[in-house]
């Protein structure tokens, strides 16, 4: 069912399958230099999409005026291998093919799409998009220059050329290792997902950008039973990775983490409820940044003045040791993009610089509104969706404290190791996330494991409450996470050093 509400949420973790700092550089030979898997011109070769045809369709999209128009061609092949009850006995494949056509006038968008890549169907969709404007026609650029960017996920071997018989043993081995690790394990599920997404963006101002975006993950879920009680947990690894990433050592690590994380839950308790200091461990807890500040910095929310951050640019929002980045250029991370879905090169955008709120995450529409350059955050789920500002990989830079000093300083509270199901209310800044693994902190030391606890906070309040940041930065190497906004899912990444938040509301039992 459709919803126009702006509820934004994120799902991470093993069961979610149903979210290096480098400045982008220009390669001398551009995109073609790294497209080793195949030559450029995929859509022309496979589907007969010529530049002349694109120009005619763009002319139709601008038949009633408008500031600009663009075409987004997509051909995505997604595969799933599923292990249940000891065997890889289910597979699923999905092929998505289509083109989305957008006409933009100010902050207004007309959008049509078609799954048939012939000129007649594309012209019809362009006519739909054109209805947003009501002036005299405009001409698109005469020629389209290929966009040249760096490649943050070069593909040597396409997933479609990896034989099924090579993938199956990887999936099977995770299952076998999980069972070998503990007699308490009673069920194991493993999912291996790979996707190759080919996109071509053609804009009325004369840019043509073509990309091959790989995405894959392996996720396992373990159920264990002890004295009649059952617990479930899991883990996943992935990103914009090739098949060679999935080594026996990785399978071993995945099995061990999945089993360990399940068994510890037999000793876990729900902590007392209320406000308390919270230490966030490194890595996946970056979900907190995604919710507490990331969404609120997406420029569409600010342009409409519906984000709690819309009046805070240039102001101090955190201590000087807090710097937060959104970055499309981290090699192989889930949220990395060579260019965004409207043809702006992938880049690194600073949200908070030493405690000062510096800039928003823009697509072309919001960049024009604010009179700045787009930041490469214009993303969409597929050709069926129009572009909106979205995060890529969001993370906090390292601090100087030692991780154990944070726990000591917290004295009494909780330590959050793994989180899932984050959600934020943009206007209030209130956010929540779910602690799937963690520990109590008592007398400045890690205590009993905790589980099944939701934490709530307020973005600006939480940022100003970060009182220590440690030097143990990690990127979350998972691939199964996706962020949802306005009904569109997008792959995103996270990273974080350990940090100490003075106080947040923990939803536990009555203490």
């Amino acid at each position, binding site marked *: 069912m459709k919803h126009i509400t702006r509820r934004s949420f994120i799902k991470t973790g093993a069961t979610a399958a149903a979210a290096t700092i480098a400045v982008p550089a220009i390669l001398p030979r551009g995109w073609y230099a790294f497209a080793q898997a195949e030559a450029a011109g995929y859509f022309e070769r496979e589907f007969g999409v010529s530049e002349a045809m694109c120009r005619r369709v763009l002319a139709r999209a601008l038949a009633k005026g408008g500031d600009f128009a663009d075409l987004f061609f997509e051909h995505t092949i997604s595969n799933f291998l599923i292990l249940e*009850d000891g065997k890889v006995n289910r597979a699923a494949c999905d092929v998505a093919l289509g083109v989305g056509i957008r006409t933009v006038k100010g902050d207004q968008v007309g959008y049509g799409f078609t799954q048939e890549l012939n000129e007649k169907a594309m012209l019809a969709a362009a006519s739909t998009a054109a209805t947003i404007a009501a002036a005299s026609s405009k001409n698109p650029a005469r020629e389209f220059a290929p966009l040249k960017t760096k490649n943050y996920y070069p593909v040597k071997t396409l997933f479609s050329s990896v034989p099924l018989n090579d993938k199956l043993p990887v999936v099977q081995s995770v299952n076998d290792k999980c069972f070998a690790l503990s007699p308490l394990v009673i069920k194991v599920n493993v999912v291996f997902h790979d996707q190759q997404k080919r996109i071509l963006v053609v804009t009325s101002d004369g840019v043509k950008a073509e990309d091959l975006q790989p995405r894959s993950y392996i996720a396992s879920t373990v159920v264990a039973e002890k004295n009649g009680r059952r617990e479930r947990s899991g883990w996943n690894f992935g990103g914009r990775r090739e098949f060679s990433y999935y080594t026996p050592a990785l399978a071993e690590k995945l099995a061990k983490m999945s089993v360990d994380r399940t068994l510890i839950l037999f000793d876990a308790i729900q902590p007392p409820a209320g*406000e308390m200091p919270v230490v966030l461990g490194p890595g996946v807890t970056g979900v907190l940044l995604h919710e507490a500040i990331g969404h609120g910095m997406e420029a569409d929310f600010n342009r409409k003045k519906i984000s709690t951050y819309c009046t805070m640019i240039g102001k101090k929002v955190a201590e000087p040791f807090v710097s937060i980045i959104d970055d499309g250029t981290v090699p192989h991370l889930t949220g990395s993009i060579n260019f965004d879905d409207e043809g702006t090169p992938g880049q690194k955008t600073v949200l908070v610089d030493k405690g000062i709120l510096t800039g928003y995450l823009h697509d072309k529409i919001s960049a024009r509104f604010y009179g700045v350059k787009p930041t490469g955050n214009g993303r969409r789920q597929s050709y069926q969706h129009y572009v909106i500002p979205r995060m890529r990989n969001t993370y906090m830079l390292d601090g100087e404290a030692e991780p154990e000093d944070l726990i000591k300083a917290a004295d009494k509270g909780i330590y959050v190791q793994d989180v899932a199901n984050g959600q934020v209310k943009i206007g209030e800044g209130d956010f929540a996330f779910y602690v799937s693994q963690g520990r109590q902190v008592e007398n400045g030391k890690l205590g009993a494991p905790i589980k099944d606890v939701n934490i*709530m906070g307020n973005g600006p309040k939480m940022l100003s409450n970060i009182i220590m940041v440690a030097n143990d930065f990690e990127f979350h190497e998972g691939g199964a996470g996706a962020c949802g906004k306005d009904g569109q899912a997008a792959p995103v990444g996270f990273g974080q050093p350990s940090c100490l938040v003075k106080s947040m509301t923990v939803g536990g039992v009555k203490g």
Partner: protein
Amino acid sequence: MKQELHDLAERAIKIAKSAGADDCRVTIGGERFVEISYRDRKPENIKEASTKGLRVEIFVNKRFSSQSTSDLRPESLKTFIENAVASTSLLAEDPFRTLPDPKYYQGRGTIDLKQYDPDYEKVTPESRHSFVKAIEESCLARGGDKVISVTAGCYDSHSEQLLMTSNGFDGYEEASVFYGGAEMTAKDEGDRRPAEYSVAVALSRKALPRPEDIGADAAARALSLLGAKKVKTETLPIIIENRVVARFGSGFVQAMFGRSIQQKQSFLADKKGQKVASNVLTLVDDPFIPGALGSRTFDGEGIAAKKRVMIEAGVLNDFYVDWYYSRKLGWEPTTGSPSNLIIPPGKRSVKEIMKDLGRGIFITGFIGGNSNSTTGDTSIGITGQLFEKGEPVHPVSEMNIADNHLKIWQRLAEAANDPYAFSQQRFPSLVFTDVVVSGI
């Protein structure tokens, strides 16, 4: 288009069988939709398109896979299905994977479920725009000087779906859907800008409320959140508003699926015939309500739909068991997915109930959170109103509830008289006692 879908399904089955499949099931869906939103009294987005997709589930030599595509060009479809059959053969054998016994296809209901509004074709671009404008205007008017932003929108679609199996099932459904909604962001103290929405979804245009009511409701909801704060952690009665009961209840329903049970991920697996909730909870799965969003005569596997009492006065009667997990569990299949879910409404309004409860929280929204289907443990963020003696005191934010589904439903004290119409889950507002609500 029915014949076109039919021909395509027959062709897909033929290709799969010639490529070596023992059996297959084909689902084809097609949809035409229009979506419009307004902001600042002008169109913000206009979107319109047609989609079509085909899914083929392949059974070959006791092996199984599911394949879907939107690339329906004859040659690519042929290659796609042939490759699918070949790669399915490489998977591990699974003797439980077959099409359902055709006897379960029998006895399909013949009642007119009124899923398609014959007036759908009469909807014009102008009527859509005036509908959305009316929502926006009433929201702006009701929101007054507190309005920061209002977005209003509508969506309608005409969809068709065809399900065909190689062992004799052939079913077709046609539906229309209409949606109207608005979201308002309001000025509050400091940097808080609370936002709330109102939505209505129905299968016929006439079943939607007046656009003015949708807009006014969105504004009233946004205004009701002004001045929210958290209160101290305490044990209180809560009322969960009808439109958000489904989100909380999904944690319970999730444990009723055959897969959860067979995979030992269900806290309800061994509870059939036992009391899992208070007497107040009866849960009926009713696929035969004319004009309801979840009505159907067959499910996704072709199994004939039946009305089922899943929970009766707190006693767990039934599970959602599809064909595959029924074979794995050695049980009778029911259906793999809920249709319309009904909790019978009570007699009193939320307002009347509040008067009797003393101090409590009326929960109007959830945020974040999770529910563990293996253990039943749940913890979730809430927004809503603190009330005392039937009167709202102030809105609450940044608060949580934590409980276990096997315990909290035993404390279900009352259902209000307000079943929610705009969802497959037609739940009334529900009252639970003694819930730990955490704040300061």
